[in-house]
């Protein structure tokens, strides 16, 4: 599968999961849950919009990443931006729309003189997300450096950067034969051949 096709599929899945699904999911919740959440001061539509915007952004970055050669700075920047947007998405999700909580979410609900306060401490997952994004950024830089090395090898000396990128694109879009051609066996000698 070429990088372009992979990026299109990946962007489509990202769009489905982060943009289409959040708009559809609230209709699956029982109405009491939605009511309780709004009483607790949770801005459901605002949260869904934030997630959907992040989904569109991540899908665009995935496409940019897939359609630009690995050795181009655009690919590197798109890759880093994609990792950072994933971190923002994690912060938004864990904080139920409030990314400034950095993993600590507080919900308060007052029903008939009973004040119910819930505090979720999910800082560990924020720390893991930061570690993961840092590693992803380092990986993107390594991929970029590696691709640069390949394009600047002595075989490619004298070619312009644009020509090298075009070569890289052509190499990616080349279809490989599915099966190797069979070796042709020499024909069996016939009776007439023996004579």
């Amino acid at each position, binding site marked *: 599968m070429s990088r372009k096709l992979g990026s299109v599929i990946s962007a489509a899945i990202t769009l489905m999961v982060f943009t289409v699904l959040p708009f559809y999911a609230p209709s699956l919740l029982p109405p009491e849950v939605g009511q309780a959440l709004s009483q607790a001061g949770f801005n459901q539509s605002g949260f869904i919009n934030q997630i959907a915007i992040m989904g569109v952004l991540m899908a665009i970055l995935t496409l940019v990443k897939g359609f630009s050669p690995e050795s181009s700075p655009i690919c590197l920047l798109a890759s880093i931006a994609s990792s950072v947007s994933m971190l923002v998405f994690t912060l938004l999700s864990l904080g139920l729309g409030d990314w400034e909580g950095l993993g600590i979410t507080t919900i308060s609900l007052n029903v008939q003189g009973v004040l119910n306060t819930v*505090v979720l401490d999910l800082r560990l997952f924020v720390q893991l997300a930061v570690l993961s994004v840092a590693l*992803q950024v380092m990986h993107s830089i390594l991929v970029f450096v590696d691709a640069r090395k390949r394009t600047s090898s002595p075989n490619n000396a004298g070619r312009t950067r644009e020509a090298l990128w075009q070569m890289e694109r052509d190499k990616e879009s080349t279809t490989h034969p599915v099966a190797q051609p069979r070796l042709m066996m020499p024909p069996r000698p016939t009776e007439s051949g023996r004579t």
Partner: protein
Amino acid sequence: MRAVRVFGLLVFLVQLSSVLTFGLGVYTIFNVASSTASGDAIGLELTIDRSTGIGILRLLATLRNIGPLGADLAIGVGAIDNSSAYITRNSTSLHLDAGEGKPVSISLHIPADSMRELMLEGVEGYFEVTFDIRTLNKMVGFLNSLRIRTGEPR
């Protein structure tokens, strides 16, 4: 090229372990929390001694952990006065291994003067019950605090 692939594998493993940890931790916490939230598992009763006027707030609960990880619990009861300060409070903590269930009982003795004040009409006092559930070596937590108004509203 090989180093890039090894690094990519490392990134994937970190992401996979993060997702697994999140799933297990949150599943455990919400399992224990749902056992505290069910009406049959928890009982809160207030008794006032007619002769002394002392109030006794008693919390009885049967807590169960049907999650895959062990959980640490801290349960507290308290009485809060008009100025949002604690009159008195009591707490206990316990550890529940995966699949384990334990009964918990805490009593809180409220002095007669404070008890009388809390029961006055229009007083903004509260009885407080808190459940602090933590798992993954206390790194992930869920705190539920219930404040029940004491005095009748004006």
